[in-house]
């Protein structure tokens, strides 16, 4: 039998349902491999013993009607997990143990999933390389000292290294799709309002969205089906009819119209990205899709808009970390002194930078010029997509303007780091579903991804296009386990 950890989620479920593999065997395999992979630094908190115990309990009383029967799953450490430490990659939540469960993770446990551990991420999901985490850099299993992307860097690393069969991330400006692209994996950001934000440590509430990360498209469809749900506890959750994404998955995309936005041909885009995109267009044509040139005229304003809206919301969302109720508390001579010391010691540089940007753009006298203007531009960006969708069913772009970079390469240049999200950010601003699938390699043999953006609530079409292109692309990660002793 092949190594359990290299199976796709779909295969693993099949094997468990056919009783060829027990939940406990699966758990043991992932725990064992995770323990041998500490050099990747993918985990912040391990839940290995409990996972093994729960997998045994599952095997004693199996329920094969569940969608994730006894499947061990590690999740990004941004999801609150009841009685399991949740840090959001920050020192300020270093000791925080939630007393409640996020809706998305609860959905996973309800379908038989078992928590394997909490995965590293950029601090409060602010970053594109996982370098802002208080718990240190994460290695990309593709090559040594390569960033795994971010903010869901622990998730992408663990997934590509087969430490977990699938995982979930959160995506505020590209935090699922960019790390997926950097690690040769699949990452889907659903439509805003698909997956409940309840129990997810908030970064930018109007942009945050949880989504599946997996080794192939089918696995993402299975996981999306589990995590997408209407939730009264999240006022921005939307009550729409959700597809049975995995059973409705099809490679028949004949006649589907795919738009190619000219504004995504950005300055200084490497040739290999340009070529990847061209190849992608050919793949799509091969699948029977019709290619149509479109325009999204406000694309160049997306990044500046994002870097006003997201920090503004973050500056307010992070105000609760003041040392009073939970998390880190530094001692101070007065209440204000305690606040200042706690937040100075508790937050890292990138988080502080964004809190300051956010505080500034919301300040009286600047609100209209920055925040209000950004909200208006956001509407224009959304309108661009609305108009494009009169002509096309989906949009194809590169996922990132480059492949994974070296640890430390961009950490002192925030703007160059921000530019990495140039293709993913507009999707969050417009609240649309977007997927990144591995589509090729650069000159260093590092993976490159293509992004498919869909209409609101049309995850099925996005998945179907990705599913059929995936077959044509036939990408396989070549992981050497270099980090193991």
């Amino acid at each position, binding site marked *: 039998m092949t190594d359990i950890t290299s199976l796709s989620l779909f295969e693993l479920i099949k094997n468990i349902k056919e009783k060829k593999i027990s939940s406990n065997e699966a758990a043991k395999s992932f725990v064992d491999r995770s323990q041998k992979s500490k050099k990747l630094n993918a985990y912040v908190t391990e839940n290995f013993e409990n996972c093994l115990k729960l997998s045994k309990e599952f095997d004693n009383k199996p329920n094969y009607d569940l969608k994730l029967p006894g499947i061990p799953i590690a999740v990004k450490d941004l999801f609150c997990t009841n009685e399991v430490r949740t840090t959001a990659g920050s020192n300020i939540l270093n000791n925080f143990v939630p007393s*409640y469960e996020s809706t998305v993770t609860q959905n996973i446990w309800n379908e038989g999933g078992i928590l394997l551990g909490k995965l590293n991420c950029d601090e409060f999901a602010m970053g594109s390389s996982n370098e802002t985490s208080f718990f240190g850099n994460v290695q990309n299993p593709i090559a040594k000292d390569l960033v795994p992307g971010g903010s869901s860097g622990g998730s992408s690393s663990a997934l590509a290294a087969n430490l977990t069969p699938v995982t979930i991330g959160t995506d505020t400006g590209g935090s699922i799709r960019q790390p997926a692209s950097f690690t040769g994996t699949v990452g889907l950001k659903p439509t805003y309002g698909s997956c409940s*934000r*309840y*129990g997810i440590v*908030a970064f*930018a*509430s*109007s942009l945050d969205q949880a989504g599946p990360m997996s080794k192939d498209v089918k696995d993402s469809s299975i996981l999306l089906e589990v995590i997408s749900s209407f939730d*009264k*506890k*999240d*006022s*921005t959750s939307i009550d729409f009819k959700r597809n049975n994404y995995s059973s409705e998955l099809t490679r028949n995309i004949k006649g589907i119209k795919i738009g190619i936005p000219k504004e995504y041909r950005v300055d200084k885009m490497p040739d290999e990205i340009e070529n990847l995109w061209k190849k992608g267009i050919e793949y799509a044509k091969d699948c029977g899709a019709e290619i149509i040139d479109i325009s999204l005229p406000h694309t160049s304003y997306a990044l500046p808009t994002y870097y006003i809206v997201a920090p*503004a*919301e973050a*500056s*307010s969302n*992070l*105000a*609760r*970390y*003041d040392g*009073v*109720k939970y998390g880190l508390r530094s001692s101070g001579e007065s*209440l*204000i002194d305690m*606040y200042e010391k706690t937040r100075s010691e508790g937050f890292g540089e990138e988080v502080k930078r964004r809190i300051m940007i956010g*505080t500034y753009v*919301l*300040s*009286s006298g600047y*609100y209209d010029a920055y*925040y209000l203007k950004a909200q208006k531009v956001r509407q224009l960006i959304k309108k661009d997509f609305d108009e494009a969708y009169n002509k096309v069913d989906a949009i194809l772009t590169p996922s990132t303007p480059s492949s994974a970079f070296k640890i430390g390469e961009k950490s002192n240049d925030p703007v160059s780091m921000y530019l990495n999200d140039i293709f993913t950010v507009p999707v969050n601003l417009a609240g649309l579903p977007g997927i990144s699938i591995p589509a090729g390699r650069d000159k260093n043999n590092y993976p490159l991804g293509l992004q498919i953006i869909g209409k609101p609530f049309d995850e099925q079409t996005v998945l179907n296009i990705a599913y059929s292109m995936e077959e044509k692309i036939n990408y396989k990660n070549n992981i050497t386990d270099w980090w193991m002793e």
Partner: protein
Amino acid sequence: MLPVINEYCVKQAIKTGIGLKAKINNKSVFDRKNYFYADLPQGYQISQYKYPIVGEGNVILDMPEGQKQVGIERLHLEQDAGKSIHDIDPSNTLVDLNRSGVALMEIVSKPDLRSPDEVNAYIKKLRSIMRYLGTCDGNMQEGSLRADVNVSVRIKGSTELGTRCEIKNVNSIKFMQMAIIYEANRQVDLIEEGEEIDQETRLFDTKKNETRSMRSKEDAHDYRYFPDPDLLPLEITDEFIDQLKSEIPELPDDKKKRFIDEFKISPYEATILVSDIDTAKYFEEVVSKMGKNRDMKLAVNWITVELFAVLNNKNIEIAHSPISAKNLAKLINLIKNGTISGKIAKTIFELMMDGDIDPQIIVVEKGLKQQSDPKALESLIDKIINDNREKAIEYKQGKEKLFGFFVGQAMKASGGKANPQLINEILKKKL
């Protein structure tokens, strides 16, 4: 945890808006008001800033010099903050977070109030309306009704309002009046000394009876208001508002008008009876139980004089009155139809309190029925005149004061049950 808009509270806010004759906004927005303080666990308060749920309205006050209309600027919903307690520990401020996050209605009046008395009347009227609506019990001691009082003064005749100071969180009408008087005098003194008023937030120290500066305008927070991304704008349909309108009870102003028209009582009496919804209910029940041959004057008097005195003495609410409206109506009817005298009625009233006893039963059991048989009374009076011949002669010679003596004797002889009117008539005739 994410916030969710509380439907019940939205309904309560709309109902209150209707009670304030205010515009209900079809669309309102929840904003975040950002500031750091220990009473605010999230680091921001969810409030409504630019687009409140209720817009302009008004309230009518009954002042001794006539009616006065006070404008309402807005009513908005927000989360209550925790309660800071400064007087338990000498060196620490304690914070009680129990009410933190609970929905709160903030009603902002226009700068129309001109005296502590008007403020008093305004608060009482607001409380009365909200109690009618069931949207606030108005209990200031428990903090379910609190006020931030803005005070400014100006030179007589000046049309421009002076710079205001805001006195935060005053929790009784009495303290409100004290704070206003203190603050107004403080401002007048400053102006007379040629100084300017700083716009600032002040606290009222109830023990020292003075206001103290909390923070000046320069220290004022930049609250960085922005729409709460966790909550979508609140949209309310006209149908929803109409439905709530149909559930609104008759409010004090309308009730007062109806009482005057229907029951022919004076505006003053009506004002007293409608100020509290339970009093109004009690009064209406008494009236309905009195039946066709009702006596409004008796009803008003018995409630506002006799019953109020008892309730005040025993410190009980009219809703828990020891005498039911039904039995009080019976008592009033017994007076009205001459079965008992007003004086006997007071005795019966006292007895009724012991378990809300039917006055009819007391009359029968204690034999307190009024003697209204003229023949019986005539023979009783004949006997008294016979027994007091000298006094009768004195009376006839002009000592009119003695009339009272004879009335007293007659009442005494009858055990208080004699119909006083008949006694008067017969005595006049016989003497």
